[in-house]
């Protein structure tokens, strides 16, 4: 396998190195905790086509497995954002833990997009958002959404430095 055929980790440790206000950390912690406690929902309803020979047990096993993975990931993110050093100091992660954090970031961001941020257009989420015309809940949700995206992106570029070069 050539060097380019699979992610090559720059080292054994990935750093959480974002810096931001402790107030934002507390807000993020409360949102992550809330999502963690919320019932798990698959991001996409049609797992596979209904015509296949899949029975209820098969679907239950599929969903349970996804739920189990997601719970583990969100537990890891919950612990990270609950750490008082998060946002003010570098925190080391193993590559496996970093990927768990990435998956959990996606889960929380999807949840925010479907709930607090559901009235925002895509162009607003990724472009210019007039934050002062938004409710306090939307402002807070948007801040957390962007922060989690920054965290996820910083981790992925450390896990897969080739993405930055290409």
């Amino acid at each position: 396998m050539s060097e380019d055929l699979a992610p090559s980790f720059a080292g054994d440790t990935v750093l959480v190195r974002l810096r931001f206000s402790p107030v934002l950390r507390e807000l993020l912690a409360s949102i992550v905790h809330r999502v963690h406690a919320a019932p798990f929902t698959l991001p996409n309803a049609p797992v596979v086509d209904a015509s296949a020979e899949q029975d209820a047990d098969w679907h239950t096993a599929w969903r349970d497995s996804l739920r189990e993975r997601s719970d583990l990931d969100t537990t890891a993110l919950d612990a990270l954002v609950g750490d008082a050093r998060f946002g003010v100091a570098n925190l080391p992660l193993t590559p496996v833990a970093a990927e768990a954090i990435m998956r959990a970031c996606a889960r929380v961001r999807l949840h925010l997009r479907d709930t607090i941020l559901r009235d925002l257009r895509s162009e607003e989420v990724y472009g210019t958002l007039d934050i002062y015309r938004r409710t306090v809940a939307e402002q807070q949700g948007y801040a957390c959404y962007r922060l989690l995206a920054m965290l996820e992106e910083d981790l992925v570029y450390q896990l897969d430095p080739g993405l930055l070069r290409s």
Partner: protein
Amino acid sequence: MSAFTHPPQFAATPSVVPDTDTRTIPAHDPMWNVVVLNDDVNLMSSVVHIFRQVFGYSTERARRHMLEVHQLGRSIVWTGGREAAEHYVHLLQQWHLRVQLEAHV
């Protein structure tokens, strides 16, 4: 443990079929497409990383699929046997991508 967390096992096609077995054995099993759908939440960089992780694709190939998803709304990221396709769908869903499995025609 469910079968979803293990790589699929590919059984070799038996070279000798017992002559007492009169069932029809299809020459080729149907093929299935693993299709990733666009969303406005997952990051482009993350999606490239996921395709590289799950399928072992080069950065260039993974990026091509990511851009296809982004620009066209969907990309067939893998085609093959049912069991392996289900495995890949499950792995991609762990990353919260929108994925479908559809018959290859």
